[in-house]
């Protein structure tokens, strides 16, 4: 039911303001596409967001960046419209639609005034189903991708991350960058793009969420109208993820980028997947370590007390597989060793003694309290619905979430911390000047 701007929402109705089975509509079309929708009539706008299981896991090593290149080329021309026709239609009404590649999936995000939702969906369906990869556009795009890679080589943060992934995920697909390397992007042909699209793009495994000033039943009709007849019996099965070899020793990698004023540090290891039973415990622990308030204990030690960094914090990636759990910091090149020492000290403490009751309660309150804020915009709700489907959390997940969070104990946090963050096997990557 739409909530009108002048309706006062009291505390008693607060819980039902969180998405749940009574206001999320989820249906699966006969061809496998899953649609989730929730109305929000507070603003005359609408967002669409979703993914297909056609990510970089399918990339051959020598053509790394193929999934990303393919998805980036989808809007460069379809059998019905040229690149300029597509963007003229979008930009003329102030709408936007973007597609991009990730490891497991390719994703899309779009927004428009509600009156232009049909156009947005038509363009998405065309791009996904009937791209023609015009030769000239493919080469133009290649130059743009190569320039992005040339900028990456000079970026201390990105280069530290790249080196970190190689250390932690040696021999595993997560060690590979989705945007590839200059030589692998050079090696990709137009035929490769066509074949990748033909083999991996299809309705099976596709998820689309629609949130905004549209009635969910109508939203589903609109999606069905342009995607229900998509049929692709030969679509490949989603790529399986090989197991990750356990690491047995600490490793450090330094990347020298001349002329830089600051060094970036990435330090950590592989963490739990989003569906691991200990994900929420690890997540609360991560908040204490490097998120809560001004970046948790790490922010207090490295930034506030020692004044060593403009930024420092920790991130737990989650995701379909064992995404990284890492600390990142930007520091003066002279302070790199001191910062790493302080970070290691905090990690040792984190895996030795349980977080205090107060620290745990603070982060629990933060996790529960921030839900309304994260669900304020249509894009926030769309991301939440996408996660429900991606990780099979159940439509009632956000209603159950406060209890799930509050039930976690400091012992569970310690067990999770110890399971992943072994100080003897952490990887450290630093990128900066000599």
């Amino acid at each position, binding site marked *: 039911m739409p*909530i009108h*701007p*002048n*309706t*006062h*929402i009291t505390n008693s109705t607060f819980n039902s*303001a969180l998405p749940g089975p009574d206001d999320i509509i989820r249906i699966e079309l006969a061809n496998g596409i899953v649609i989730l929708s929730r109305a*929000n009539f*507070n*603003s*005359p*706008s609408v967002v669409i967001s979703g993914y297909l299981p056609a990510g970089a896991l399918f990339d051959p090593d020598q053509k790394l960046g193929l999934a990303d290149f393919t998805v980036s080329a989808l809007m460069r021309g379809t059998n019905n419209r040229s690149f*300029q026709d597509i*963007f003229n239609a979008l*930009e*003329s*009404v*102030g709408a*936007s639609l973007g597609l991009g590649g990730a490891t497991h999936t390719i994703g899309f995000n779009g927004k*428009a*005034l509600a009156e232009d939702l049909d156009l947005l969906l038509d363009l998405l369906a065309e791009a996904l189903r009937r791209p023609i990869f015009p030769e000239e556009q493919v080469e*133009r795009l290649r*130059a743009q991708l*190569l*320039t992005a890679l*040339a*900028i990456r*080589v*000079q970026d201390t943060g990105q280069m530290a991350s790249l080196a970190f992934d190689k250390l932690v995920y040696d021999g595993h697909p997560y060690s590979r960058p989705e945007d590839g390397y200059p030589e692998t992007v050079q090696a990709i042909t137009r035929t490769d793009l066509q074949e990748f699209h033909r083999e991996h793009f299809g309705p099976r495994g596709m998820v689309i969420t629609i949130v905004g000033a549209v009635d969910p039943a109508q939203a589903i009709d609109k999606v069905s109208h342009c995607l229900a007849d998509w049929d692709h019996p030969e679509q490949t099965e989603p790529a399986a993820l090989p197991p990750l070899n356990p690491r047995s020793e600490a490793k450090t990698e330094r990347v020298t*980028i001349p*002329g*830089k*004023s*600051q060094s970036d540090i990435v330090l950590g290891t592989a963490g739990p997947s989003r569906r691991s039973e200990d994900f929420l415990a690890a997540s609360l622990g991560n908040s204490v370590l490097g998120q*809560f*308030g*001004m970046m948790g204990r790490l922010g207090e030690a490295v*930034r*506030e*007390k*020692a*004044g*060593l*960094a*403009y*930024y420092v914090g920790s991130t737990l990636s989650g995701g379909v597989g064992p995404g990284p759990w890492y600390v990142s910091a*930007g520091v*003066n090149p002279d302070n790199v060793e001191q910062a790493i020492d302080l970070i290691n000290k905090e990690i040792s403490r984190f895996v030795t003694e349980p977080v205090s009751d107060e620290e745990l309660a603070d982060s629990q*309150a*933060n*996790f*529960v*309290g*921030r839900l*309304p*804020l994260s669900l*304020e*915009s*249509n*894009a926030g709700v769309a991301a939440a619905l996408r996660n429900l489907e991606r990780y099979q959390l159940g439509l009632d997940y956000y209603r159950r979430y406060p209890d799930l969070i509050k039930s976690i104990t400091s012992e569970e946090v310690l067990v999770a911390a110890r399971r992943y963050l072994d100080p003897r096997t952490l990887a450290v990557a630093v990128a900066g000047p000599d």
Partner: protein
Amino acid sequence: MPKIAILCYIPGMQTPITKLTLENGLLVLLREIRSAPLISHWVWYRIGSRNERAGSTGISHWVEHMQFKGTSKHSSSVLDKAISREGGMWNAFTHLDWTTYFEILPAEKIDLAFSLEADRMSNSLFDPDEVSSERNVIISERQGNENEPYFQLTEEVQAAAFRVHSYHHMVIGDMADLQTIERDDLYRHYRNYYVPNNAVLAIAGDFDTDDMLSKVRAAYESIPAGNNPPHKFRAEPPQSGERRVTVEGPAETTYVQMAYHIPPAHHPDFLAMMVLDSLLSGPSNLNLFGSGISNKTSLLYLALVEQELAVSVHGGVQATQDPFLYTISSIVHPASSAEKVISTVDDQIKRLQDQPPSGDSLARALKQARALFAYGSESITNQAFWLGISEMVATYDWFLQFLDNLAEITPHDVQRAAQTYLRPQNRILGVYQPTENGKLV
């Protein structure tokens, strides 16, 4: 002090604004929005890098950092934790003309924002040890910026654009000043300008206006008005010839930035410049949160990127108090050159100077602006941001009438703006040239 209720409406969003000034000079803007159980609370100070002189550049930004270091009543860690515990968010920004602090909290927890902001309006400690440790943090922030070729180029272009006016330096400040500014300099700046008669309070969200007004008075009305020393602003004389700057540094990519002096937000030509920007390089996003829209059908994208002279181009108009800059920034295609990019931009500008744009293209720019406003209105915080920033650069009426006034802009207005402002004599050309081992690539 009588309550001055100004009843004004955003199209499609029939919620009134309340605007009044307290006895101590604090300007208050309140807007009820009942779309989510949240309140967004902002305090804006009319102080920024525009108010700084050589020797104290970056001081406004450093003071902003010190505002998170605690008062006698709230120690720094207590402040952070209190907000985070309620699931809220807080942060601050320092810009050319203003410094702002905001909290977003569940509606029933908003007293926390009042308690913190009213306290740090006058009671921050500026502990010498904290100042010393923060010096390193800020220098580190500047060094992080310096890692980006684009920052280095922008810094030099801005310095070349403003020989006299204090928009000359970047908000972060010059390294020389970050090394020498002392605790007492910071504290003096704070006490002079963090006063209610130099501030605007903007609150939007799930509240009853009368109740909120009582809270505002209880928290802020007892803070005495302060000194707020007047500033002597030095107007930038008209530029009478093209200026060029080159920055060399390790990179593999050439960057171009073209900057033109343009009028401030309240000037009648500012909206014509916004339309011009929209046609040339795609619409600027006025929202604080959320991305804008793509610009692949803008004139410069077609002429530069589609012709493989550049791999990207973006333009930007900023709403400021004093005349600032319209900038066109581009990453040069590996097979092209900075000069080719510049001459192609010149061709496109000349076409707009020679012939007014079509009515259809203006209608399109208006629809784009309407869509961007709709995206921003999804968020209570964006709406509170709009309340405050419009008072920093003009008045809230400026914002409310924005779309209506934009609709009044004619093709002739756009042509005249192109003729008046986008002249070579009125611009600074900046090029970042990549080097390898100290030699130009």
